[in-house]
């Protein structure tokens, strides 16, 4: 097991190098002057374009430029993000907790709804409940997040004037940035409760409702389907028939025997689902003006804010490799028949 984890951790820098090299390569499609103009914020500076090219070494061969960037990163300097108006490291520290909170608030209901209704759907196969669940699932993953997001905003924020976009209201903004508000966890709802300010917690939570609903409705389908099909497979196996033949109540057969085995693929998949949510909230965050990693990375990518895109990509590549590793380890952990080698 340790050997397996060590091997995967060795693989991590390889992927991260590859990801950044590829991004860097893509950016070389732009001429040095175009890339230099990305650093220019004032038209008057355009006459000094050549100096910018010299300063950042933009006319050097690509490997040399990459090396310059890499050396900085290895010194712990990820650069300055023009779109976030702060250093990349600070931007990640400020945006990541927001995304993490949103992901967590969506992931927990997804897990419960997915497993509960997935099981029920398999037990009551082809009955009304199963059909309803399937329809909800298939409409969920056919609905683009931006369509659902705009509908929800129009109805709940526009018409009913509840659940506003953003992360908090103005007065809470002042509160969170004041010196007597302690950031214990980075999860603002929790922090507000820990600070004893329930009104602020309510405000922050009300901002989470719509983006979380969007994510839940769109992503729950995957877990529903996996649970249902895995459950169906287990219910058809011999040991389930044996358990029934012994005269065990159906409830026990389903919950204690079949579901335990059916959850194996679900458990391993859920760590990947979590990461998928974490890096897949791009559009949802953009629509709801939610200041997280996703919204920032898309703005950075659109405006070719090189340090910003590189930083955001590095982070999500890192999470991706780690989540895959956790998923594999979990797999071996929940199912002793599987050995990692």
């Amino acid at each position, binding site marked *: 097991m340790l050997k397996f984890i060590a091997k995967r951790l060795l693989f991590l820098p390889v992927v991260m190098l590859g990801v950044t090299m590829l*991004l860097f390569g893509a950016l070389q499609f732009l001429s040095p002057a175009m890339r230099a103009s990305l650093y220019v914020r004032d038209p008057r500076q355009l006459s000094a374009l050549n100096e910018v090219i010299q300063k950042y070494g933009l006319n050097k061969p690509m490997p040399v430029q990459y090396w310059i960037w890499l050396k900085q990163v290895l010194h712990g300097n990820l650069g300055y993000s023009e779109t976030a108006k702060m250093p990349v490291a600070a931007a990640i520290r400020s945006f990541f907790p927001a995304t993490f909170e949103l992901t967590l608030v969506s992931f927990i209901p997804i897990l419960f709804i997915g497993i509960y209704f997935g099981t029920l759907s398999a037990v009551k196969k082809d009955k009304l409940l199963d059909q309803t669940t399937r329809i909800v699932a298939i409409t969920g993953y*056919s609905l683009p997040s931006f369509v659902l997001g705009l509908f929800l905003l129009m109805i709940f924020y526009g018409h009913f004037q509840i659940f506003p976009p953003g992360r908090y209201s103005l007065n809470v903004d002042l509160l969170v940035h004041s010196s007597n508000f302690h950031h214990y966890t980075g999860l603002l709802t929790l922090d507000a409760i820990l600070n004893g300010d329930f009104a602020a917690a309510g405000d922050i939570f009300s901002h989470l409702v719509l983006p979380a609903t969007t994510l839940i409705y769109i992503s729950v389908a995957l877990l529903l389907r996996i649970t249902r*099909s895995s459950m169906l497979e287990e219910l058809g196996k011999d040991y389930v028939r044996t358990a029934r033949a012994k005269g065990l109540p159906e409830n026990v057969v389903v919950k204690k025997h079949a579901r335990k085995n059916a959850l194996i693929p679900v458990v391993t998949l859920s760590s990947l689902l979590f990461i998928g949510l974490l890096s897949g909230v791009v559009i949802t965050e953009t629509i709801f003006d939610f200041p997280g990693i996703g919204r920032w990375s898309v703005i950075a990518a659109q405006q070719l804010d090189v340090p910003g895109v590189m930083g955001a990509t590095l982070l999500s590549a890192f999470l991706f490799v780690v989540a895959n590793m956790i998923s594999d380890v979990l797999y071996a952990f929940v199912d002793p028949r599987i050995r990692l080698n």
Partner: protein
Amino acid sequence: METKSKAAAMWKALKKRPLSLLGFCIIGFFLLVAAAAPILAPVPANSRSAYLIPEDGYNPEPKLPSAKHWFGTTENQYDLYYGMVWGTRTAFKVAVLVVGLALMVGIFLGSISGFYGGWIDEGLMRFTDIILAFPGLVLAVVIVAVLGPSLDHVMISVAAVQWPSYTRLLRGDVLAVKEREFVLAARALGASDARILIKHIIPNSIYPLLVVASLDVGSVVITAAALSFLGLGAPAGYASWGQLISMSRDWILGSPGNAFAYWNTVFIPGIAIFLFVLGWNLMGDGVRDILDPRQR
């Protein structure tokens, strides 16, 4: 004869799945709209391209449906009905071209990777590892941002994110098929590598890939529309659903006191994208269920 009975069996299986049948009906409806676009929404005489939506004035405020504009107008008075009808063609174009392009690359690289093995295989697989480690949408946005916003570049970038999973899937199946006896027999008869690959290995390993690709059409359409929504797709006034919904973004809160004042600009293109993707997903689900009896 055999294909005919297969089609008949397929039809019989489909009849038992009303939802999949519904999927075929939805896509059939959109196909009809796309085919009949010149009749449903005649191109104005002085238009440079059928895909440019006619503009009725320059008022930024969208208008509700009327006798003159059946679906109303978007901001800057683009006729929504015309955009929806011709946008159907754009939607099919995106769906078919993106999945087709990704499939071509996937089939080419996947079969080579599985067939030859060695350093080609190792190199290609590590490369796919790297692309899969990217947050897909962010990579696609970077590609479009570098190439410049346009519908063609959106299609290229979505295909660029899509091909690695196809390559890996086909590679796995090729690895299994290339050990089979009929491949050995073909080799013993002196068939060339290309002939073995094209005539024997690919036809026997491509099936799972095609099923996965048919299930992917919906999500590909969503990704491409999302890029248009972010303003990276076709220019304003081009008939594309993603572009139309992106134009509605500033109007979703309606006018003071009436949140639904411009409902048509969001709901009409939004429902169309939803139905289009739903149709593909229902169809893909049906095809998978019929081909893979374990999932029933």
